[in-house]
């Protein structure tokens, strides 16, 4: 018993070095396993995901040519050439022959173009996107510049603005009953190009605010660009708004 106790005691006291060694061994194993796990994880992470390569152009696979003889090949080539010429003509016809205007309403930029050539790039201002509600009548307006293609319907020098209802609502004034009370001179700049539905390309009294979205849907331009656009764009000129 004593011996056993001694032995038991001895185990606890006489082999502390062995216990430490075992604990150290376990710790080492854990460290090695942990290191391996980290390494595997790092390898997995570095080898997983997207691998990006610089783009290289490759030829598109084409359907196997059915032509076998030289004569058939020549006929096929003739047909393809003719088809491609027709397609190029069709694509070419999509671009207006004369001047046209492009308006980027999200970035407030306007370009005057002739074919693929840019004649003018200018800052403009487009619709604010705000909504106005007339509490009395419940009528509401959203001041967005439209998208799509429009055409210049008419051009005016020294335009007079016929103020719509929202202009009075916005100013907190009563909507006038007499038509003559709606007209205001000098606020639209030197020229105005009518795009239909009340939308215009016109000038501004506040050139410092160009480049910001603040209009009621019209496209405002500075004095010099407006002169160029007015001179280049007659009735029927396409205006692309995006």
């Amino acid at each position, binding site marked *: 018993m004593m011996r056993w106790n001694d032995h038991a005691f001895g185990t606890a006291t006489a082999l502390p070095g062995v216990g430490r060694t075992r604990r150290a061994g376990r710790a080492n194993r854990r460290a090695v396993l942990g290191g391996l796990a980290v390494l595997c994880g790092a390898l997995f992470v570095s080898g997983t995901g*997207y691998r990006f390569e610089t783009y290289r152009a490759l030829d598109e696979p*084409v359907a196997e040519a059915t032509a076998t003889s030289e004569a058939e090949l020549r006929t096929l080539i003739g047909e393809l050439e003719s088809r491609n010429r027709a397609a190029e003509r069709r694509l070419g016809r999509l671009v207006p022959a004369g001047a046209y205007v492009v308006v980027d309403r999200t970035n407030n930029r306007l370009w005057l173009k002739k074919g693929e050539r840019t004649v003018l790039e200018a800052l403009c201002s487009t619709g604010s996107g705000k909504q106005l509600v007339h509490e009395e009548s419940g009528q509401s307006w959203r001041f967005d510049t439209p998208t799509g293609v429009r055409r210049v319907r008419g051009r005016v020098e020294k335009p007079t603005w016929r103020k719509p209802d929202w202009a009075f609502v916005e100013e907190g004034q009563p909507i006038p009953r007499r038509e003559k009370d709606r007209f205001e001179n000098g606020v639209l700049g030197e020229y105005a190009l009518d795009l239909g539905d009340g939308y215009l390309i016109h000038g501004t009294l506040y050139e410092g605010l160009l480049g910001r979205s603040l209009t009621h849907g019209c496209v405002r331009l500075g004095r010099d660009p407006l002169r160029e656009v007015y001179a280049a764009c007659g009735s029927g000129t396409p205006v692309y708004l*995006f």
Partner: protein
Amino acid sequence: MRIGHARLPVLNLESKPEGDRPLMKTTRSRIRVLTALAAGLLLGAAASVESTLVGSAAAGTAAAKTAREASADLPERAEQLARESERLRRELELSESPGPVLALDPARSRLYMKFQGVLLREFPVISVEVGRPRIFFLPEPSDETWRWRIWEDGVCVPEPKVRAQADSLIPLLPEERVPAPRTFRVRFAEGRVLEVHSVELDDVEAAALGDTVEDIEVDGTAAGNFESPGMMARISDFGSGLLEAVRPVRRESLRLRITLSNEDAGALYRALPPSVRLLIR
């Protein structure tokens, strides 16, 4: 004394006798010269006849060779035209879209925004890279038809949001109103993704990028050194790519990454229409 003159009167080689020189010697040398000349003329004529004959024969051979080569090139030419025809067909199809569309031309390093065939805006592209998913270095099956098909139904992620206007009389600028992230993606149908990175360019770099379309290498890398995307952007891209690759049901099959200048990337982000279509030229 007059032999020389008498024998060769028409040649008029010598208008007057040469003083003390022996006559026979002079005559012999004249004869030699004349013989040499005649031989030269004969040789020249023969050579010219030969060259004409050889030339015509060579021309005939060259024509036959050209014809043979032309015949050999016919299948290649037909393939080239078929490819061009297919490209034009897609361009026409794209031009019939109801809204603005995108066309990426890696060879010219340009991204075009078009509407019904009309160029609305073009963006100089600094680099074009193709990313394919992989797991533990093993490539996952990816879509290889992306180059030759129109990408449909593109949706911008994150969606552009208009910032509320503060109580100020001066409206916000476009970049303040709709701030663009440094990286955004346009997710198309069939798991194709256009990833747009933006980098800061100084004026010189921007001018170089805008002006040197012809100098841009065909592999899509523009001339000049540009700042690479920031570390946080890289980490974010890496994390999103990793998560996407290990997702049980993957939403993506391919990422096409383009790098634009900050200004252009922002303008594109703000101007992207809903359900945009993309064609890789």
